[in-house]
C-alpha cells in the first residue's frame, strides 16, 4: 500500500488528477484503445470460427492481431497512468479487480493467438487455426466485452467517482 501512496503523491500523479489535459485525455485515449482491441478481437474470433467473415486470410488475421496488440499497449500505458492517480482506491474496488482479471486473461489469449498464427508461411493464403485457437478466440472476445462492461461499472459499483 505504501507504494501506491507514494505513486499517488508523485508530481506526475498529481498533475494527471488535476489537469484537464491529464485524466480526461487519458480516459478518452483509453476508450479509443478499448474500441480497437475489443472490436478487432471480435472480428478475428468471427473469422477463425468461420462466422460470416471469411474473405480474410492468415496474413491479415496476424496483422489485425498485431494492431489489436498495439491497442492493448495504448490501454496498458493509459490504464497504468489512470491507476497511479488513485491506486489505493482502485486496488480495493471489487469491480476493478474483476475487470483486471478479465483483461489479463483476454490479453494473454490475444498475445498467444498472435504467436500461434504468425508463423504461417508468408506466401500461403491459408489460415491454420486449430480447435484450441478457435475456441480461445471466442473466449477472449467474450471476456473483452465483459471487461468493457466491468470497466463502465467501476463508476457505479465503487466509491471512486463519488
Amino acid at each position: 500500500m505504501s507504494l501506491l501512496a507514494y505513486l499517488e503523491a508523485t508530481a506526475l500523479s498529481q498533475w494527471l488528477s488535476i489537469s484537464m489535459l491529464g485524466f480526461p485525455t487519458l480516459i478518452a485515449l483509453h476508450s479509443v484503445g478499448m474500441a480497437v482491441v475489443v472490436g478487432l478481437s471480435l472480428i478475428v474470433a468471427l473469422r477463425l470460427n468461420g462466422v460470416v467473415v471469411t474473405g480474410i486470410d492468415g496474413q491479415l488475421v496476424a496483422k489485425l492481431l498485431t494492431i489489436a496488440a498495439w491497442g492493448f499497449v495504448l490501454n496498458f500505458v493509459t490504464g497504468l497512468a489512470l491507476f497511479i492517480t488513485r491506486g489505493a482506491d482502485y486496488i480495493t474496488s471489487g469491480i476493478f479487480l474483476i475487470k483486471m482479471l478479465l483483461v489479463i486473461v483476454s490479453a494473454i489469449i490475444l498475445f498467444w493467438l498472435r504467436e500461434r498464427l504468425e508463423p504461417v508461411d508468408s506466401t500461403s493464403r491459408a489460415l491454420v487455426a486449430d480447435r484450441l485457437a478457435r475456441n480461445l478466440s471466442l473466449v477472449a472476445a467474450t471476456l473483452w466485452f465483459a471487461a468493457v462492461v466491468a470497466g463502465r461499472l467501476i463508476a457505479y459499483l465503487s466509491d471512486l467517482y463519488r
Partner: protein
Amino acid sequence: MSPDVWAWIANTPVRTWVVDSPYVWPTLESIHFASLCVLMGSLLVVDLRLIGLYRQPCAPTVRFLIRLAVAAFAINLATGLLFFLGNTYKYVDNAAFELKLVLIAIAGLNALLYKRSLSHIVESDELSWSSVGVGWLSLLLWSGVIVCGRMITFYAP
C-alpha cells in the same frame, strides 16, 4: 433552440424511465460502449483496406462488415437518444457533445463518398488518393467521436 424546447425534451416520460431506476442508465452505457467497439472494429478493417495496408478482404466480407458497423451505429444512436432524453441538460450547451455531433455528421458525409471508393477498390484492386483520404478521414473522425463522447462528462454544464 429555446429553453422551452429543451424543457419539453427534458420532461418526457422517457426521462423517468431512464433515470428513476438505478439500473437503466448503467445498462444503457454498457450497451453503448460494447456497441462502439463493434462499430470501430468493423470500420477499422475496412478503413485500413481503403488506406491500402492490405488487399483483402473480398467484397462479401466488406459488405458484411459495413452492415455490422451500421447496425452498431443504430444501437448507439438509440441508446444515445435515451441518454439525451434522460439527462437533457448534461448535453445542452456541452462543447464535447456538440463537437461529437459535428464529427458524426462529417463521418456520415464521408460514408457517402466511402461507398464509391469502396466499390471502386474492391472491383479494380487499385488505390486512389480519394480512397486513401476517405479511409484516413473515417478512422480519424470515428476516433474523434469516441474521444468527444468520453469527454462529455467533463464538459457537462
